[in-house]
Protein backbone atom coordinates (compact mmCIF):
# COMPACT_ATOMS: atom_id res chain seq x y z
CA UNK A 1 0.00 0.00 0.00
CA UNK A 2 1.54 3.28 -1.13
CA UNK A 3 0.77 6.53 0.71
CA UNK A 4 1.76 10.13 0.04
CA UNK A 5 2.44 12.23 3.12
CA UNK A 6 2.54 16.03 2.82
CA UNK A 7 3.90 17.51 6.04
CA UNK A 8 6.30 20.43 6.29
CA UNK A 9 7.48 19.86 9.85
CA UNK A 10 10.58 17.72 9.62
CA UNK A 11 10.26 15.98 12.96
CA UNK A 12 6.58 15.21 12.64
CA UNK A 13 7.02 14.13 9.02
CA UNK A 14 9.74 11.67 9.99
CA UNK A 15 7.63 10.42 12.87
CA UNK A 16 4.57 9.73 10.75
CA UNK A 17 6.76 7.98 8.16
CA UNK A 18 8.25 5.87 10.94
CA UNK A 19 4.78 5.05 12.26
CA UNK A 20 3.35 4.09 8.86
CA UNK A 21 6.42 2.14 7.81
CA UNK A 22 6.30 0.15 11.03
CA UNK A 23 2.76 -0.80 9.93
CA UNK A 24 4.24 -1.89 6.56
CA UNK A 25 2.91 0.92 4.41
CA UNK A 26 5.11 2.40 1.74
CA UNK A 27 5.31 6.13 2.37
CA UNK A 28 6.51 8.91 0.10
CA UNK A 29 6.97 12.09 2.12
CA UNK A 30 7.14 15.60 0.67
CA UNK A 31 7.35 18.88 2.54
CA UNK A 32 5.34 21.26 0.39
CA UNK A 33 2.27 21.42 -1.81
CA UNK A 34 4.07 21.93 -5.10
CA UNK A 35 6.31 18.90 -4.62
CA UNK A 36 3.20 16.94 -3.76
CA UNK A 37 1.48 18.03 -6.95
CA UNK A 38 4.56 17.11 -8.99
CA UNK A 39 4.84 13.64 -7.52
CA UNK A 40 1.14 12.84 -8.02
CA UNK A 41 1.70 13.36 -11.76
CA UNK A 42 4.33 10.65 -11.91
CA UNK A 43 3.12 8.19 -9.25
CA UNK A 44 -0.16 6.70 -8.15
CA UNK A 45 -1.02 6.44 -4.51
CA UNK A 46 -3.57 4.46 -2.55
CA UNK A 47 -4.10 7.36 -0.18
CA UNK A 48 -3.01 10.94 0.45
CA UNK A 49 -2.26 12.25 3.95
CA UNK A 50 -2.23 16.04 3.83
CA UNK A 51 -1.30 18.74 6.27
CA UNK A 52 -3.08 22.03 5.54
CA UNK A 53 -0.44 24.60 6.47
CA UNK A 54 2.29 23.66 4.03
CA UNK A 55 4.31 26.12 1.92
CA UNK A 56 3.71 27.23 -1.68
CA UNK A 57 0.42 25.40 -2.15
CA UNK A 58 -1.60 24.63 0.94
CA UNK A 59 -3.36 21.33 1.55
CA UNK A 60 -6.78 22.67 0.55
CA UNK A 61 -5.49 24.12 -2.73
CA UNK A 62 -3.52 20.97 -3.42
CA UNK A 63 -6.45 18.60 -2.99
CA UNK A 64 -8.78 20.93 -4.82
CA UNK A 65 -6.54 20.98 -7.89
CA UNK A 66 -6.04 17.21 -7.72
CA UNK A 67 -9.81 16.66 -7.64
CA UNK A 68 -10.26 19.12 -10.52
CA UNK A 69 -7.83 17.12 -12.62
CA UNK A 70 -9.88 13.99 -11.96
CA UNK A 71 -7.68 12.38 -9.32
CA UNK A 72 -9.95 10.49 -6.94
CA UNK A 73 -7.29 9.04 -4.66
CA UNK A 74 -8.75 8.93 -1.14
CA UNK A 75 -7.39 11.82 0.95
CA UNK A 76 -7.19 12.51 4.67
CA UNK A 77 -6.33 15.87 6.18
CA UNK A 78 -4.02 15.77 9.20
CA UNK A 79 -4.24 19.19 10.73
CA UNK A 80 -4.01 21.29 13.85
CA UNK A 81 -6.82 23.52 12.57
CA UNK A 82 -9.63 22.78 14.97
CA UNK A 83 -12.34 25.18 13.81
CA UNK A 84 -15.47 24.00 12.08
CA UNK A 85 -14.90 26.30 9.09
CA UNK A 86 -11.63 24.54 8.27
CA UNK A 87 -13.32 21.17 8.65
CA UNK A 88 -16.08 22.27 6.27
CA UNK A 89 -13.51 23.54 3.80
CA UNK A 90 -11.55 20.29 4.03
CA UNK A 91 -14.55 18.21 3.07
CA UNK A 92 -15.66 20.77 0.48
CA UNK A 93 -12.40 20.44 -1.47
CA UNK A 94 -12.85 16.67 -1.56
CA UNK A 95 -11.37 15.10 1.56
CA UNK A 96 -12.54 11.68 2.67
CA UNK A 97 -11.60 12.21 6.29
CA UNK A 98 -10.27 14.90 8.58
CA UNK A 99 -8.03 14.08 11.56
CA UNK A 100 -7.09 16.67 14.13
CA UNK A 101 -3.65 16.76 15.67
CA UNK A 102 -2.70 15.41 18.09
CA UNK A 103 -4.09 12.03 17.13
CA UNK A 104 -3.72 8.50 18.35
CA UNK A 105 -1.51 6.39 16.06
CA UNK A 106 -4.00 3.52 16.12
CA UNK A 107 -6.78 5.87 15.12
CA UNK A 108 -4.71 7.10 12.19
CA UNK A 109 -4.12 3.53 10.97
CA UNK A 110 -7.81 2.63 11.35
CA UNK A 111 -8.92 5.71 9.45
CA UNK A 112 -6.38 5.14 6.68
CA UNK A 113 -7.60 1.59 6.19
CA UNK A 114 -11.25 2.60 6.20
CA UNK A 115 -10.61 5.34 3.64
CA UNK A 116 -8.80 2.90 1.37
CA UNK A 117 -11.53 0.28 1.75
CA UNK A 118 -14.16 2.86 0.90
CA UNK A 119 -12.35 3.65 -2.33
CA UNK A 120 -13.17 0.05 -3.25
CA UNK A 121 -16.77 0.60 -2.09
CA UNK A 122 -16.10 -1.93 0.64
CA UNK A 123 -16.54 -2.00 4.39
CA UNK A 124 -13.97 -4.67 5.05
CA UNK A 125 -10.46 -5.69 4.14
CA UNK A 126 -11.77 -7.57 1.16
CA UNK A 127 -13.69 -6.77 -1.97
CA UNK A 128 -15.70 -9.55 -3.52
CA UNK A 129 -17.08 -9.34 -7.02
CA UNK A 130 -18.44 -12.44 -8.72
CA UNK A 131 -15.74 -15.10 -8.54
CA UNK A 132 -13.05 -12.48 -7.91
CA UNK A 133 -11.78 -11.55 -4.45
CA UNK A 134 -9.38 -8.74 -3.66
CA UNK A 135 -7.57 -8.42 -0.36
CA UNK A 136 -7.02 -4.67 0.03
CA UNK A 137 -4.42 -4.91 2.79
CA UNK A 138 -2.32 -7.60 1.15
CA UNK A 139 -2.97 -6.26 -2.36
CA UNK A 140 -3.66 -9.74 -3.65
CA UNK A 141 -6.36 -10.98 -6.08
CA UNK A 142 -8.00 -14.38 -5.74
CA UNK A 143 -9.99 -16.08 -8.46
CA UNK A 144 -12.28 -18.89 -7.30
CA UNK A 145 -10.25 -19.05 -4.12
CA UNK A 146 -6.82 -19.34 -5.65
CA UNK A 147 -4.26 -16.56 -5.64
CA UNK A 148 -3.67 -14.80 -8.96
CA UNK A 149 -0.18 -14.08 -10.11
CA UNK A 150 -0.37 -10.82 -12.01
CA UNK A 151 2.18 -8.59 -13.65
CA UNK A 152 2.40 -5.02 -12.38
CA UNK A 153 0.34 -3.67 -15.31
CA UNK A 154 -2.30 -6.36 -15.02
CA UNK A 155 -2.56 -5.58 -11.33
CA UNK A 156 -3.06 -1.85 -11.97
CA UNK A 157 -5.74 -2.57 -14.60
CA UNK A 158 -7.63 -5.05 -12.46
CA UNK A 159 -7.31 -2.77 -9.45
CA UNK A 160 -8.91 0.08 -11.41
CA UNK A 161 -11.67 -2.20 -12.73
CA UNK A 162 -12.59 -3.65 -9.33
CA UNK A 163 -12.80 -0.16 -7.78
CA UNK A 164 -15.70 0.46 -10.15
CA UNK A 165 -16.86 -3.11 -10.56
CA UNK A 166 -19.96 -3.41 -12.74
CA UNK A 167 -19.41 0.05 -14.16
CA UNK A 168 -17.56 1.13 -17.26
CA UNK A 169 -14.04 2.36 -16.59
CA UNK A 170 -12.79 4.73 -19.27
CA UNK A 171 -9.88 3.65 -21.41
CA UNK A 172 -8.13 6.99 -20.86
CA UNK A 173 -8.33 6.61 -17.08
CA UNK A 174 -6.63 3.22 -17.21
CA UNK A 175 -4.03 4.51 -19.65
CA UNK A 176 -3.42 7.43 -17.34
CA UNK A 177 -2.70 5.01 -14.49
CA UNK A 178 -0.43 2.94 -16.71
CA UNK A 179 1.47 5.76 -18.37
CA UNK A 180 3.24 6.13 -15.08
CA UNK A 181 5.11 2.92 -15.72
CA UNK A 182 5.36 2.55 -19.46
CA UNK A 183 4.68 4.14 -22.78
CA UNK A 184 1.16 2.90 -22.71
CA UNK A 185 -0.72 2.51 -25.88
CA UNK A 186 -4.18 1.27 -26.52
CA UNK A 187 -2.88 -1.84 -28.22
CA UNK A 188 -0.70 -2.55 -25.20
CA UNK A 189 -3.73 -2.18 -22.98
CA UNK A 190 -5.67 -4.59 -25.20
CA UNK A 191 -2.92 -7.17 -24.77
CA UNK A 192 -3.06 -6.87 -20.99
CA UNK A 193 -6.85 -7.09 -20.98
CA UNK A 194 -6.89 -10.19 -23.14
CA UNK A 195 -4.36 -11.83 -20.79
CA UNK A 196 -6.67 -11.08 -17.89
CA UNK A 197 -9.62 -12.48 -19.85
CA UNK A 198 -7.69 -15.68 -20.44
CA UNK A 199 -7.47 -16.09 -16.68
CA UNK A 200 -11.29 -16.33 -16.77
CA UNK A 201 -11.93 -12.83 -15.46
CA UNK A 202 -15.09 -11.45 -17.00
CA UNK A 203 -14.00 -8.20 -18.58
CA UNK A 204 -16.23 -6.74 -21.25
CA UNK A 205 -14.92 -4.45 -23.93
CA UNK A 206 -17.22 -1.45 -24.34
CA UNK A 207 -16.25 -0.24 -27.81
CA UNK A 208 -14.72 3.19 -27.98
CA UNK A 209 -15.30 3.84 -24.29
CA UNK A 210 -13.52 1.40 -22.06
CA UNK A 211 -13.86 -1.80 -20.08
CA UNK A 212 -16.23 -3.25 -17.53
CA UNK A 213 -15.84 -5.99 -14.97
CA UNK A 214 -18.96 -8.14 -15.24
CA UNK A 215 -20.68 -10.68 -13.01
CA UNK A 216 -20.76 -14.21 -14.30
Amino acid at each position, binding site marked *: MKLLLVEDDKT*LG*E*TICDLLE*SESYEVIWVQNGEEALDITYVSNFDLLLLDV*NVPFLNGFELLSSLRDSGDNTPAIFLT*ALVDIESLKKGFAVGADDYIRK*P*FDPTELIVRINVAIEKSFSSHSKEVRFSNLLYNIQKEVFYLNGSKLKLTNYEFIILNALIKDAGKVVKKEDILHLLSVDEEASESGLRVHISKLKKLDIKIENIRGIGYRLNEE
Partner: protein
Amino acid sequence: MKNKNNSISRFFWIYFSSVFILIVSSGIFYFFEQKSALEKEEYSSILLYAKMQQYTGNTFYDKLFSFELKSKYKPWYEKNVMHKDGQFFVYEAPTQDPTQFLIIKKTTNVFEKNRITLMINIFIVVISLLVVFMFISLFLARESIRPLNDMIQNLDDFIKNLVHDLNTPATSILLNAQLLQTKKGKNDDKRIARIESSTKEILSLYKNLSVLLNEHKFELIQQDISPIIKNIIESFKDQHTNIEFKFISEDECFLKIDKQALEQILNNLISNACKYKAKENSFVHVHLENRQLIIKDNGLGMQYPEKVFERLYSEHTKGHGIGMYIVQKLTEAMNIRIQFNSKKDVGTEVILILEV
Protein backbone atom coordinates in the same frame (compact mmCIF):
# COMPACT_ATOMS: atom_id res chain seq x y z
CA MET B 1 -18.97 37.95 18.85
CA LYS B 2 -21.59 37.95 21.59
CA ASN B 3 -19.29 39.94 23.86
CA LYS B 4 -18.64 42.40 21.08
CA ASN B 5 -22.36 43.02 20.55
CA ASN B 6 -22.81 43.32 24.28
CA SER B 7 -20.20 46.03 24.57
CA ILE B 8 -21.57 47.87 21.54
CA SER B 9 -25.04 47.87 23.06
CA ARG B 10 -23.71 49.00 26.44
CA PHE B 11 -21.75 51.86 24.92
CA PHE B 12 -24.77 52.70 22.82
CA TRP B 13 -27.13 52.88 25.79
CA ILE B 14 -24.71 55.00 27.79
CA TYR B 15 -24.32 57.50 24.96
CA PHE B 16 -27.94 57.43 23.95
CA SER B 17 -29.54 57.67 27.39
CA SER B 18 -27.46 60.72 28.35
CA VAL B 19 -28.35 62.39 25.06
CA PHE B 20 -31.99 61.33 25.58
CA ILE B 21 -32.16 62.98 29.01
CA LEU B 22 -30.53 66.13 27.62
CA ILE B 23 -32.80 66.46 24.58
CA VAL B 24 -36.05 65.56 26.33
CA SER B 25 -35.42 67.90 29.28
CA SER B 26 -34.46 70.79 26.99
CA GLY B 27 -37.65 70.05 25.00
CA ILE B 28 -39.72 70.28 28.17
CA PHE B 29 -38.01 73.51 29.31
CA TYR B 30 -38.43 75.05 25.89
CA PHE B 31 -42.10 74.13 25.91
CA PHE B 32 -42.76 75.85 29.26
CA GLU B 33 -40.74 78.88 28.14
CA GLN B 34 -42.75 79.20 24.95
CA LYS B 35 -46.02 78.55 26.76
CA SER B 36 -45.45 81.40 29.17
CA ALA B 37 -44.51 83.64 26.23
CA LEU B 38 -47.85 82.73 24.64
CA GLU B 39 -49.63 83.58 27.89
CA LYS B 40 -47.83 86.94 27.99
CA GLU B 41 -49.01 87.61 24.47
CA GLU B 42 -52.60 86.89 25.52
CA TYR B 43 -52.20 89.19 28.51
CA SER B 44 -50.90 92.06 26.44
CA SER B 45 -53.69 91.60 23.88
CA ILE B 46 -56.22 91.84 26.70
CA LEU B 47 -54.51 94.95 28.04
CA LEU B 48 -54.61 96.44 24.58
CA TYR B 49 -58.31 95.59 24.35
CA ALA B 50 -58.96 97.26 27.71
CA LYS B 51 -57.15 100.38 26.49
CA MET B 52 -59.21 100.42 23.33
CA GLN B 53 -62.42 100.19 25.36
CA GLN B 54 -61.24 103.09 27.47
CA TYR B 55 -60.48 105.24 24.43
CA THR B 56 -63.62 104.34 22.53
CA GLY B 57 -65.96 104.55 25.52
CA ASN B 58 -66.68 100.86 25.46
CA THR B 59 -67.69 100.68 21.82
CA PHE B 60 -64.75 98.76 20.41
CA TYR B 61 -65.58 95.37 18.95
CA ASP B 62 -63.49 92.25 18.55
CA LYS B 63 -65.01 88.84 18.02
CA LEU B 64 -62.55 87.13 20.34
CA PHE B 65 -63.44 89.36 23.27
CA SER B 66 -66.50 90.14 25.33
CA PHE B 67 -66.93 92.52 28.24
CA GLU B 68 -69.32 93.63 30.90
CA LEU B 69 -69.31 96.46 33.38
CA LYS B 70 -69.60 95.54 36.97
CA SER B 71 -69.70 97.51 40.11
CA LYS B 72 -67.58 95.74 42.50
CA TYR B 73 -65.60 96.56 45.55
CA LYS B 74 -62.01 95.66 45.05
CA PRO B 75 -59.47 96.16 47.80
CA TRP B 76 -56.40 98.20 46.75
CA TYR B 77 -53.99 95.42 47.42
CA GLU B 78 -55.69 93.05 45.09
CA LYS B 79 -53.71 93.14 41.87
CA ASN B 80 -55.25 92.99 38.50
CA VAL B 81 -54.29 89.51 37.45
CA MET B 82 -55.34 87.69 34.37
CA HIS B 83 -56.70 84.28 35.18
CA LYS B 84 -58.17 81.41 33.34
CA ASP B 85 -61.80 80.57 33.93
CA GLY B 86 -62.95 77.59 31.93
CA GLN B 87 -62.78 78.45 28.26
CA PHE B 88 -61.88 82.13 28.87
CA PHE B 89 -59.12 84.32 30.04
CA VAL B 90 -60.62 86.81 32.50
CA TYR B 91 -59.23 90.24 33.33
CA GLU B 92 -60.73 92.91 35.54
CA ALA B 93 -59.71 96.30 34.20
CA PRO B 94 -60.32 99.52 36.11
CA THR B 95 -62.38 102.23 34.39
CA GLN B 96 -62.62 106.02 34.79
CA ASP B 97 -65.31 105.36 37.34
CA PRO B 98 -63.59 103.89 40.39
CA THR B 99 -66.72 101.97 41.43
CA GLN B 100 -66.92 100.18 38.16
CA PHE B 101 -64.77 97.52 36.66
CA LEU B 102 -64.60 96.27 33.19
CA ILE B 103 -64.65 92.46 33.20
CA ILE B 104 -62.98 91.36 29.97
CA LYS B 105 -63.22 87.82 28.75
CA LYS B 106 -61.20 86.39 25.91
CA THR B 107 -61.74 82.94 24.49
CA THR B 108 -58.79 80.54 24.98
CA ASN B 109 -59.32 78.88 21.60
CA VAL B 110 -56.44 80.69 19.88
CA PHE B 111 -54.14 80.13 22.84
CA GLU B 112 -55.00 76.42 23.00
CA LYS B 113 -54.47 76.06 19.29
CA ASN B 114 -51.06 77.73 19.53
CA ARG B 115 -50.17 75.64 22.57
CA ILE B 116 -50.97 72.39 20.79
CA THR B 117 -49.07 73.45 17.67
CA LEU B 118 -46.11 74.32 19.87
CA MET B 119 -46.34 70.98 21.61
CA ILE B 120 -46.48 69.07 18.33
CA ASN B 121 -43.57 71.06 16.87
CA ILE B 122 -41.39 70.46 19.90
CA PHE B 123 -42.33 66.79 19.90
CA ILE B 124 -41.35 66.43 16.23
CA VAL B 125 -38.04 68.23 16.77
CA VAL B 126 -37.25 66.14 19.87
CA ILE B 127 -38.03 62.86 18.13
CA SER B 128 -36.00 63.73 15.05
CA LEU B 129 -33.08 64.84 17.18
CA LEU B 130 -33.33 61.58 19.11
CA VAL B 131 -33.28 59.57 15.90
CA VAL B 132 -30.24 61.48 14.64
CA PHE B 133 -28.44 61.02 17.94
CA MET B 134 -29.42 57.38 18.04
CA PHE B 135 -27.43 56.83 14.85
CA ILE B 136 -24.60 59.00 16.13
CA SER B 137 -24.53 56.97 19.36
CA LEU B 138 -24.50 53.73 17.43
CA PHE B 139 -21.65 55.02 15.28
CA LEU B 140 -19.72 56.23 18.33
CA ALA B 141 -20.31 52.94 20.14
CA ARG B 142 -18.93 51.02 17.18
CA GLU B 143 -15.99 53.37 16.80
CA SER B 144 -15.10 53.30 20.48
CA ILE B 145 -14.78 49.53 20.64
CA ARG B 146 -13.07 49.19 17.28
CA PRO B 147 -9.46 49.37 18.58
CA LEU B 148 -10.38 46.95 21.33
CA ASN B 149 -11.99 44.71 18.80
CA ASP B 150 -8.92 44.75 16.55
CA MET B 151 -6.77 43.85 19.51
CA ILE B 152 -9.04 40.97 20.46
CA GLN B 153 -8.95 39.76 16.85
CA ASN B 154 -5.13 39.91 16.87
CA LEU B 155 -4.91 38.10 20.17
CA ASP B 156 -7.31 35.49 18.89
CA ASP B 157 -5.16 34.85 15.82
CA PHE B 158 -2.07 34.83 17.99
CA ILE B 159 -3.50 32.19 20.29
CA LYS B 160 -4.70 30.15 17.32
CA ASN B 161 -1.21 30.18 15.83
CA LEU B 162 0.32 29.44 19.20
CA VAL B 163 -1.96 26.46 19.66
CA HIS B 164 -0.96 25.29 16.21
CA ASP B 165 2.73 25.72 16.98
CA LEU B 166 2.38 23.80 20.22
CA ASN B 167 0.29 21.14 18.58
CA THR B 168 2.83 19.99 16.02
CA PRO B 169 5.69 19.20 18.45
CA ALA B 170 3.19 17.79 20.98
CA THR B 171 1.81 15.42 18.33
CA SER B 172 5.29 14.39 17.41
CA ILE B 173 6.28 13.72 21.05
CA LEU B 174 3.12 11.69 21.60
CA LEU B 175 3.56 9.60 18.45
CA ASN B 176 7.23 8.92 19.11
CA ALA B 177 6.55 7.94 22.71
CA GLN B 178 3.91 5.50 21.55
CA LEU B 179 6.19 4.15 18.84
CA LEU B 180 8.84 3.55 21.50
CA GLN B 181 6.31 1.59 23.54
CA THR B 182 5.28 -0.66 20.63
CA LYS B 183 8.95 -1.60 20.04
CA LYS B 184 8.14 -2.01 16.35
CA GLY B 185 11.03 -1.25 14.01
CA LYS B 186 14.53 -0.44 15.10
CA ASN B 187 14.48 3.32 15.10
CA ASP B 188 14.45 3.88 18.83
CA ASP B 189 17.43 6.25 18.84
CA LYS B 190 15.85 8.33 16.12
CA ARG B 191 12.57 8.36 18.00
CA ILE B 192 14.27 9.65 21.13
CA ALA B 193 16.11 12.28 19.07
CA ARG B 194 12.78 13.40 17.62
CA ILE B 195 11.22 13.68 21.07
CA GLU B 196 14.19 15.82 22.06
CA SER B 197 13.95 18.12 19.07
CA SER B 198 10.18 18.55 19.55
CA THR B 199 10.72 19.36 23.20
CA LYS B 200 13.28 21.97 22.19
CA GLU B 201 10.73 23.50 19.86
CA ILE B 202 8.23 23.83 22.68
CA LEU B 203 10.96 25.21 24.92
CA SER B 204 11.89 27.91 22.41
CA LEU B 205 8.24 28.91 22.20
CA TYR B 206 8.15 29.06 25.97
CA LYS B 207 11.25 31.27 26.05
CA ASN B 208 9.72 33.69 23.57
CA LEU B 209 6.54 33.86 25.60
CA SER B 210 8.41 34.50 28.83
CA VAL B 211 10.27 37.41 27.20
CA LEU B 212 6.90 38.66 25.99
CA LEU B 213 5.72 38.67 29.58
CA ASN B 214 8.89 40.45 30.78
CA GLU B 215 10.09 37.46 32.76
CA HIS B 216 13.58 37.34 31.32
CA LYS B 217 16.40 38.52 33.64
CA PHE B 218 19.46 39.86 31.86
CA GLU B 219 22.94 38.78 32.89
CA LEU B 220 25.47 40.73 30.83
CA ILE B 221 28.80 38.88 30.78
CA GLN B 222 31.87 39.64 28.66
CA GLN B 223 32.26 36.68 26.29
CA ASP B 224 33.18 35.56 22.76
CA ILE B 225 29.97 35.37 20.76
CA SER B 226 31.40 33.57 17.74
CA PRO B 227 31.05 30.00 19.17
CA ILE B 228 27.52 30.78 20.37
CA ILE B 229 26.49 31.73 16.84
CA LYS B 230 28.27 28.71 15.40
CA ASN B 231 26.41 26.31 17.70
CA ILE B 232 23.05 27.73 16.77
CA ILE B 233 23.75 27.52 13.06
CA GLU B 234 24.85 23.90 13.50
CA SER B 235 21.57 22.98 15.15
CA PHE B 236 19.63 24.58 12.29
CA LYS B 237 21.79 22.72 9.77
CA ASP B 238 20.65 19.40 11.24
CA GLN B 239 17.00 20.41 11.02
CA HIS B 240 17.07 21.94 7.54
CA THR B 241 19.15 19.81 5.23
CA ASN B 242 17.79 21.48 2.09
CA ILE B 243 19.07 24.95 3.06
CA GLU B 244 22.65 26.05 2.53
CA PHE B 245 24.07 27.58 5.72
CA LYS B 246 27.24 29.64 5.74
CA PHE B 247 28.97 31.28 8.70
CA ILE B 248 31.79 33.71 8.05
CA SER B 249 33.39 35.12 11.15
CA GLU B 250 36.44 36.86 12.52
CA ASP B 251 38.33 34.76 15.01
CA GLU B 252 36.97 36.27 18.14
CA CYS B 253 34.39 38.83 19.04
CA PHE B 254 34.19 39.68 22.73
CA LEU B 255 31.10 41.48 23.90
CA LYS B 256 29.27 42.08 27.15
CA ILE B 257 26.14 40.20 26.41
CA ASP B 258 23.41 37.93 27.81
CA LYS B 259 24.04 34.57 26.22
CA GLN B 260 20.45 33.33 26.41
CA ALA B 261 19.09 36.51 24.93
CA LEU B 262 21.57 36.42 22.06
CA GLU B 263 20.68 32.78 21.40
CA GLN B 264 17.04 33.67 21.33
CA ILE B 265 17.56 36.59 18.96
CA LEU B 266 19.50 34.33 16.58
CA ASN B 267 17.02 31.51 16.94
CA ASN B 268 14.14 33.78 16.00
CA LEU B 269 15.99 35.39 13.08
CA ILE B 270 17.33 32.14 11.62
CA SER B 271 14.11 30.21 12.16
CA ASN B 272 12.29 32.96 10.23
CA ALA B 273 14.82 32.63 7.41
CA CYS B 274 14.20 28.85 7.39
CA LYS B 275 10.43 29.12 7.70
CA TYR B 276 10.11 31.54 4.81
CA LYS B 277 12.78 30.06 2.59
CA ALA B 278 12.92 30.18 -1.19
CA LYS B 279 11.48 27.33 -3.24
CA GLU B 280 14.87 26.37 -4.62
CA ASN B 281 18.53 26.93 -3.78
CA SER B 282 17.65 28.56 -0.52
CA PHE B 283 20.47 29.84 1.65
CA VAL B 284 21.04 31.50 5.01
CA HIS B 285 24.33 33.36 5.30
CA VAL B 286 25.62 34.74 8.59
CA HIS B 287 28.53 37.20 8.70
CA LEU B 288 30.24 38.44 11.84
CA GLU B 289 32.59 41.29 10.95
CA ASN B 290 33.57 44.63 12.47
CA ARG B 291 31.11 44.22 15.33
CA GLN B 292 28.28 43.71 12.86
CA LEU B 293 26.25 40.54 12.67
CA ILE B 294 24.50 40.12 9.33
CA ILE B 295 21.91 37.42 8.66
CA LYS B 296 20.93 37.21 5.04
CA ASP B 297 18.58 34.92 3.15
CA ASN B 298 17.07 34.63 -0.33
CA GLY B 299 13.61 33.72 0.96
CA LEU B 300 10.09 35.03 0.53
CA GLY B 301 10.84 38.46 2.05
CA MET B 302 8.23 40.87 3.29
CA GLN B 303 5.85 43.17 1.50
CA TYR B 304 5.72 45.69 4.35
CA PRO B 305 9.09 45.43 6.12
CA GLU B 306 8.36 48.58 8.14
CA LYS B 307 5.78 46.61 10.09
CA VAL B 308 8.13 43.79 10.99
CA PHE B 309 8.56 44.73 14.66
CA GLU B 310 4.87 45.27 15.32
CA ARG B 311 3.58 42.84 17.85
CA LEU B 312 1.30 40.18 16.35
CA TYR B 313 2.00 41.39 12.81
CA SER B 314 2.48 38.56 10.36
CA GLU B 315 2.37 38.36 6.58
CA HIS B 316 2.33 34.59 6.43
CA THR B 317 -0.10 32.03 7.76
CA LYS B 318 2.70 30.25 9.56
CA GLY B 319 3.86 33.20 11.64
CA HIS B 320 2.39 34.46 14.87
CA GLY B 321 4.04 37.87 14.95
CA ILE B 322 6.00 37.61 18.17
CA GLY B 323 9.45 36.47 17.01
CA MET B 324 10.60 39.80 15.58
CA TYR B 325 8.87 41.75 18.32
CA ILE B 326 10.96 39.79 20.82
CA VAL B 327 14.11 40.31 18.77
CA GLN B 328 13.47 44.04 19.00
CA LYS B 329 12.81 43.89 22.74
CA LEU B 330 15.96 41.90 23.46
CA THR B 331 18.23 43.96 21.21
CA GLU B 332 16.89 47.14 22.78
CA ALA B 333 17.61 45.80 26.24
CA MET B 334 21.21 45.08 25.27
CA ASN B 335 21.72 48.32 23.31
CA ILE B 336 22.10 46.53 20.01
CA ARG B 337 20.97 48.52 17.01
CA ILE B 338 19.04 46.59 14.39
CA GLN B 339 18.52 47.23 10.69
CA PHE B 340 15.94 45.29 8.74
CA ASN B 341 15.95 45.20 4.94
CA SER B 342 13.51 42.98 3.11
CA LYS B 343 12.00 42.73 -0.32
CA LYS B 344 9.15 40.44 -1.27
CA ASP B 345 10.29 37.38 -3.25
CA VAL B 346 13.92 38.55 -3.08
CA GLY B 347 15.02 38.02 0.48
CA THR B 348 15.75 39.52 3.85
CA GLU B 349 18.83 40.98 5.47
CA VAL B 350 19.04 41.71 9.18
CA ILE B 351 22.00 43.70 10.50
CA LEU B 352 22.76 43.77 14.23
CA ILE B 353 25.18 46.53 15.19
CA LEU B 354 26.95 45.20 18.27
CA GLU B 355 28.63 48.26 19.76
CA VAL B 356 27.61 47.36 23.26
